[in-house]
């Protein structure tokens, strides 16, 4: 069967499954809608969290980033998993004990005021919206490449699917669809990796294959061979090339960790389990399911890089002839993501570090995972599976983010601030309308992506790291933290992060609107703007403690509330009020 038909069948079958589940798990109450009735088993919740968390960026882009950064790519691996340790120990059990529906709701109650709640909603919406644009783009690109529709049609189909299961099912529907999506995406990610590891090293387990000897009889370890190939061509060695500097790697890893622990759509997942101890276990299970992909990714990255190098240079000093380049190479040229230019007109393609001589003028990092099965000559059904997996990753994250946005609008702004007397039925209606609106807005932004689409993921993490994470942590661990301190901290943390990012990349990522150019780039101790969230968080903490010192302590009942959330007993049924 040809690839096109297979792709339709595999993608169609997985979508039918998701929609079937959404119909089966329809939400009937606001509790179902926001937190799945708080009855989700911790293992299943871990699986759903993993799908929610692993977006198109994890599935499609991360292995490609690692393939090109080598050791420097470790920041993503450590950062995007280490955040769960922080979540499990510093936030999840206490927020679950508190027992409300949303993150701004906790911040509003803990810092006794609507202004704190509104500030949290603003941070949440900026972080989630910027993140969701990237997902919508991923959906559009994946469809257009493999279903051979144009980008717009692909996006409309994706919006329709998200609409059906997210609006109807709410958190309950999303949770159960995400479990199915997790199974699809992890299977799709692992199968090609197993084949490729088997082919290169003779070991089917990619995590071990990466540390094994090559199966080509050379007796060399795979990583040593990769290091040797790269240094021969003038690239840095794969296994020890740091990203900018050791300090920068440190800060970048920290930013991704606390950003992960501060992203509202991830935190919300821990409100869906029945008890405090389930919240603790659920973080562990989420990490297990995430680790299944994140420990395979470095193998995929290194092996893809080696395969790519070997395709272009089959033997040392022997470059591939232009007219003998393989079919997958031509396929990806059509998309514009892969480009070569025969600069010295010798009819061969040279791939070297020297920019003047390098003829592989463009190798988009995002193609590494998608092209991997083709490069390794795997059967068509594997390629179809990877498409389905990529879509599952993008759709599940988009749905989780849209729910976080919708609940902050209907629950925090509408019920919490503007219309406190709204009935449960109207609130449920409002959240569905908000969700539909959010999908339409995200779709619009996906069709007309703003200039800044590419830079936004870093901003989403930076914002969450510098505003939401410190506010939550101080709310739990410092009884004396007051409203003035927390709000000043959030404002300073966010402002400084925005100032640094926009100074480098232009206001709203518009290149013409850069400012203070004379300061140079990475001027703050060599920290790149993507990594600045952790520095913003430090400013947040310091400001908060200084301001809290010179203002009135929080009222008595708030201090009792903090004492209460620190102890698991008496969590009882959650309430929305």
């Amino acid at each position: 069967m040809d690839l096109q038909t297979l792709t339709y069948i595999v993608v169609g079958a997985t979508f039918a499954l998701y929609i079937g589940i959404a119909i089966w798990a329809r939400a009937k109450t606001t509790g179902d809608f926001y937190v799945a009735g708080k009855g989700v088993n911790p293992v299943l919740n871990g699986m759903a969290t993993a799908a929610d968390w692993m977006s198109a960026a994890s599935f499609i882009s991360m292995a490609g980033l690692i393939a090109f950064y080598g050791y420097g790519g470790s920041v993503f691996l450590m950062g995007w998993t280490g955040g769960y340790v922080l979540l499990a120990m510093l936030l999840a059990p206490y927020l679950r004990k508190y027992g409300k529906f949303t993150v701004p709701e906790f911040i509003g109650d803990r810092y006794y005021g609507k202004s704190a709640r509104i500030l949290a909603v603003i941070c949440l919406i900026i972080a989630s919206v910027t993140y969701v644009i990237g997902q919508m783009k991923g959906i559009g690109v994946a469809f257009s490449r493999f279903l051979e529709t144009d980008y717009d049609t692909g996006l409309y189909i994706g919006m329709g699917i998200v609409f059906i299961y997210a609006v109807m099912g709410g958190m309950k529907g999303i949770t159960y669809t995400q479990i199915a999506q997790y199974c699809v995406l992890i299977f799709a990610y692992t199968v090609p990796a197993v084949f490729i590891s088997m082919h290169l090293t003779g070991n089917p387990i990619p995590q071990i294959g990466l540390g094994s000897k090559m199966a080509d009889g050379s007796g060399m370890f795979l990583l040593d061979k990769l290091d040797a190939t790269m240094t021969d061509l003038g690239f840095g060695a794969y296994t020890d090339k740091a990203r900018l500097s050791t300090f920068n790697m440190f800060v970048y890893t920290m930013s991704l960790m606390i950003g992960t622990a501060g992203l509202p759509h991830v935190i919300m997942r821990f409100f869906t389990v029945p008890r405090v101890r389930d919240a603790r276990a659920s973080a562990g299970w989420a990490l297990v399911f995430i680790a299944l992909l994140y420990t395979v990714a470095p193998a995929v990255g290194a092996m893809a890089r080696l395969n790519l190098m070997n395709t272009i240079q089959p033997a040392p000093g022997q470059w591939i002839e232009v007219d003998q380049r393989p079919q997958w190479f031509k396929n990806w040229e059509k998309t514009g993501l892969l480009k070569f230019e025969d600069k010295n007109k010798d009819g061969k393609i040279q791939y070297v570090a020297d920019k003047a001589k390098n003829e592989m003028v463009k190798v988009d990092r995002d193609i590494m995972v998608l092209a991997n099965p083709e490069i390794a000559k795997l059967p068509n059904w594997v390629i179809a599976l990877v498409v389905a997996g990529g879509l599952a990753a993008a759709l599940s994250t988009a749905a989780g983010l849209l729910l976080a946005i919708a609940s902050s609008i209907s629950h925090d702004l509408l019920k919490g601030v503007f219309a406190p007397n709204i009935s449960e039925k109207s609130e449920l209606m409002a959240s569905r309308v908000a969700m539909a609106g959010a999908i339409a807005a995200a779709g619009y932004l996906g069709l007309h992506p703003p200039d800044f689409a590419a830079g936004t993921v870093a901003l989403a993490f930076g914002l969450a790291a510098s505003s939401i994470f410190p506010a939550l942590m101080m709310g739990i661990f410092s009884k004396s933290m007051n409203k003035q301190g927390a709000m000043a901290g959030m404002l300073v943390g966010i402002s400084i992060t925005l100032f640094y990012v926009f100074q480098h990349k232009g206001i709203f990522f518009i290149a013409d609107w850069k400012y203070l150019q004379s300061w140079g780039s990475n001027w703050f101790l060599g920290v790149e703007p993507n990594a600045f969230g952790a520095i913003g968080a430090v400013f947040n903490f310091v400001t908060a403690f200084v301001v809290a010192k010179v203002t009135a302590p929080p009222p008595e009942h708030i201090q009792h509330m903090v004492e209460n959330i620190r102890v698991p007993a008496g969590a009882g049924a959650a309430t929305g009020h």
Partner: protein
Amino acid sequence: MSKHASYWKANLRLVFGCLVVWFLASFVFGILLAEPLNSIRLGGYKLGFWFSQQGSIYTFVVLTFFYAWRANKLDQEFGVRED
């Protein structure tokens, strides 16, 4: 000291201990000491590289389960378990 206060203290000690391990496995072994550790080999892996791309993640998984298990035991010891 009240029961709740001593529970909280024990909990903080547990969390702090876990975070020390979290920091060692990622920031110290994977980043700060990666270069010297790279002279030690674990099969085809250099040790610093292994920690940054594999070992830290395995440590995180074990650590969260260890924390959950210990924290549940603390809940029981201090009689603050739910239900």
